[in-house]
């Protein structure tokens, strides 16, 4: 590749990256999560973001922002507190990758200008490149291992861009080390350097002496290298090397990763030379780097921008709450700042329930993605989605313990997002079951909620067993002690039946009429009825079981429109 076409490729990658960044950054002002956020126009969010970005330095927010920068962004104390191994892995990737970027990828712009006599094949640069590369590889391994461990507890949600980034980073690292190894042992690379340095000015004797020295000291895999070269020849070669090569070439053992790799490759280096492997590896290495740069805004690497911003916004909010517009933007930012590390899922209080009900929508990492998809798809398309029943189940079964928010290594305001998500779902016709039931009367529900086949003692042991309610003598004690009945002001409160009437419906075999009743769903579960029943009927337990039966049947209702 010529220098100019390389430059064009870099510019294209940079341009794509810049366009992508613009798109992703604008999403923080465009994406609307929660009914309150829908009321705030784009320009107000832009104004609040610009104001925040430029004014924090002169406000009370400054100490909080500086503290967040030092402790949260640089030292990543939140990750350290949650997962030490992943913190170490992350730090290794961050340091190794950044150092390689500055010292190696940007050598022409930085290292060469800062350090006189810089040569990539000279120590300490040769050694350091291997140090940084090894750090990044070790970091990737640690982070993946930590993730695997978390996955055993709960399956973390992921997006395509997550895998793409890990794949590209791995390709860059592996191709880099292989390229270096190939060049260390390559006779063709040796020949090219000889040609460039000496041209025609080297005698065949000197050349074979130099080859002997490089075969022994530099591990070049010459086809005709003697296993035990003549000591005099070797001595001549080493003298020649000292004059001609040593100023640019440290011993390859400094490349403590690539050199052993080149030993493993052994004689395979020559056939690889025949197919110009070094060139192809270089293309792969550079192409993966440029592709990574071009798609950066759409991969996990974007978190290198979104996470620091998110943490700094938290720091700013620590001294003074954000404005409505700021909060709306912070929600959109949270979607991008999540790296789906899955630590929230492992701490989630309802994770065991998610596993038991086989509904991953309960888990924070999945809820974050569904919140985002909801914002993107809008409300109109959701009405027929069985998928959204599952998502709503996840949203409303959250126990609001706040552990995900407290433990998130990037400090996302997840509790605020979950509230917004519940409000969004409710507005789109997917409210909590207790609210949904209120949209129809008990007799309307009776028509809509026929018993599914197989409903029997296993799932409804109380209401399907006559012995539960047949002792009821309709004495009305349950109704008389019921606080819900006592405090009902009128029809507007919705309480339709009384506990004793519910028992009577069961006795008459009309359980369907009780399922959607407000008495069943507005029961305070205070157990007064059950405690006071002279016949020892488990009235409250029956109420709860009826709710459970109704909930199972509600899942079969697809049409969420309110009756005309």
């Amino acid at each position, binding site marked *: 590749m010529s220098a100019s076409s390389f430059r064009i490729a870099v510019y294209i990658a940079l341009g794509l990256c810049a366009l992508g960044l613009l798109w992703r950054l604008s999403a923080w002002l465009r994406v609307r999560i929660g009914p309150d956020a829908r009321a705030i126009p784009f320009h107000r969010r832009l104004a609040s973001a610009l104001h925040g970005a430029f004014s924090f330095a002169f406000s009370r927010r400054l100490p909080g922002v500086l503290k967040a920068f030092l402790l949260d962004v640089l030292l990543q104390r939140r990750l350290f507190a949650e997962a030490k191994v992943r913190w170490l892995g992350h730090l290794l990737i961050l340091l190794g990758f950044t150092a390689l970027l500055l010292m190696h990828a940007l050598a022409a712009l930085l290292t060469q200008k800062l350090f006189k006599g810089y040569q990539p094949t000279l120590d300490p640069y040769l050694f350091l490149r291997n140090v940084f590369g090894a750090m990044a590889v070790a970091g990737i391994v640690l982070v993946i291992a930590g993730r695997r461990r978390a996955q055993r507890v709960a399956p973390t949600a992921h997006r395509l861009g997550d895998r793409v980034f890990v794949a590209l980073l791995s390709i860059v690292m592996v191709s880099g080390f292989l390229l270096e190894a190939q060049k260390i042992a390559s006779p063709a690379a040796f020949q090219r350097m000889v040609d460039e340095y000496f041209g025609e000015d080297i005698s065949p004797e000197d050349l074979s002496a130099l080859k002997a020295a490089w075969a022994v000291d530099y591990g070049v895999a010459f086809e005709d290298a003697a296993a035990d070269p003549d000591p005099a020849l070797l001595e001549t070669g080493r003298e020649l090397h000292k004059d001609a090569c040593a100023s640019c070439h440290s011993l390859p053992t400094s490349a403590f990763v690539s050199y052993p790799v080149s030993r493993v490759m052994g004689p395979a280096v020559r056939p690889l030379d025949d197919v110009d492997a070094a060139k192809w590896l270089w293309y792969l290495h550079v192409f993966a780097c440029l592709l990574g740069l071009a798609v950066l805004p759409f991969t996990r690497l974007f978190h290198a921008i979104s996470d620091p911003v998110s943490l700094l916004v938290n720091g700013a909010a620590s001294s003074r709450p954000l404005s409505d517009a700021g909060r709306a933007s912070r929600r959109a930012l949270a979607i991008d700042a999540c790296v789906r590390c899955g630590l929230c899922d492992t701490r989630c209080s309802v994770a*065991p329930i998610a596993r*038991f*009900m086989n509904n991953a929508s309960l888990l924070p990492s999945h809820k974050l993605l569904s919140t985002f998809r909801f914002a993107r798809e809008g409300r109109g398309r959701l009405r027929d989605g069985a998928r959204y029943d599952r998502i709503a189940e996840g949203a409303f079964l959250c126990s609001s313990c*706040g552990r995900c928010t407290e433990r998130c290594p990037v400090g996302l305001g997840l509790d605020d997002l979950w509230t917004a998500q519940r409000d969004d779902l409710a507005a789109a016709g997917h409210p909590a079951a207790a609210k949904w039931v209120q949209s129809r009367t008990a007799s309307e529900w009776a028509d809509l909620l026929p018993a599914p086949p197989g409903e029997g003692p296993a799932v409804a042991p109380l209401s399907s067993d006559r012995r539960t309610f047949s002792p009821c003598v309709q004495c009305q004690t349950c109704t008389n002690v019921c606080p819900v009945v006592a405090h009902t002001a009128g029809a507007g409160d919705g309480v339709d039946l009384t506990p004793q009437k519910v028992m009577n419906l069961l006795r008459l075999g009309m359980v369907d009429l009780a399922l959607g009743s407000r008495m069943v769903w*507005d029961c305070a579960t205070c157990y007064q009825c059950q405690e006071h029943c002279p016949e020892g009927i488990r009235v409250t337990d029956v109420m709860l079981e009826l709710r459970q039966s109704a909930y199972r049947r509600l899942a079969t209702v697809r049409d969420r429109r309110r009756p005309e």
Partner: protein
Amino acid sequence: MKYAMFVGCTIPARLPAYETSTRAVLARLGVELVDLPFACCGNTVRGLDQDAYVFASARNLALADRAGLDVLTPCKCCFGNLRHALRFLSQDAGLRARIGRALESEGLALPEKVQVHHLLSVLFHEVGVQAIAAAVTAPRTGLKVAAHYGCHALRPSKVTQFDNPLAPTLFETLVRATGATAVDWPRRLDCCGDPLHDANPPLAGRLTQAKLDDARQNGADVLATACPYCQLRFADAQAGRTDPLPTILFPQLLGLAMGLHPGRLGLPG
């Protein structure tokens, strides 16, 4: 006296002072608390999916069982749910088998020996009123306290076995141990309204208000609770009022009487 501390979801998220004060008081009274990797008691799914609820409770109970500890919880709803789960498991062989299989897939076994206690039961039955009275160094003499029992500790008594469900005395006895006076108020056993708050806020509000009015009419200076939901409901219902009836968590009242610094009880110091 050593228990697995089941703090639940709501206390850490919305009422951390309850945990702080409970730990401070129990530590002073020689009760040791152990933290296990507990999750939700199943309350969130109780009225929607019986098996999922019992599984959630049983998983926590299995963890305590494995550690050889009984459970202590300051939350009356967690208390009720955990105790109900044990009852359901003992009554229904089919349920027991299903939950047993699910626990097995998590490397756990059905709970066998574990017992579930509420904070107040442990104070009354295990620590004992005499030991508590002996630890009181700053008695709250003259303070008139309305003790709010909370439904899910009291009823159904066959399951909770907390106290006499119709004429309980446990909470008032503990209140008196702090040197305060326990007022008699007709609505002391009523529901605080919280379980109804999401589904029917106006009705829930009337339940809450009836209790607050009753406590006030019977001369209470303060309402004592021992459940996060009740405490939050009474506080939220009076938000914005200029003359609210103060509510206090029982371990805060006890802690003050024991001379603990308000800061250690999650109170403004």
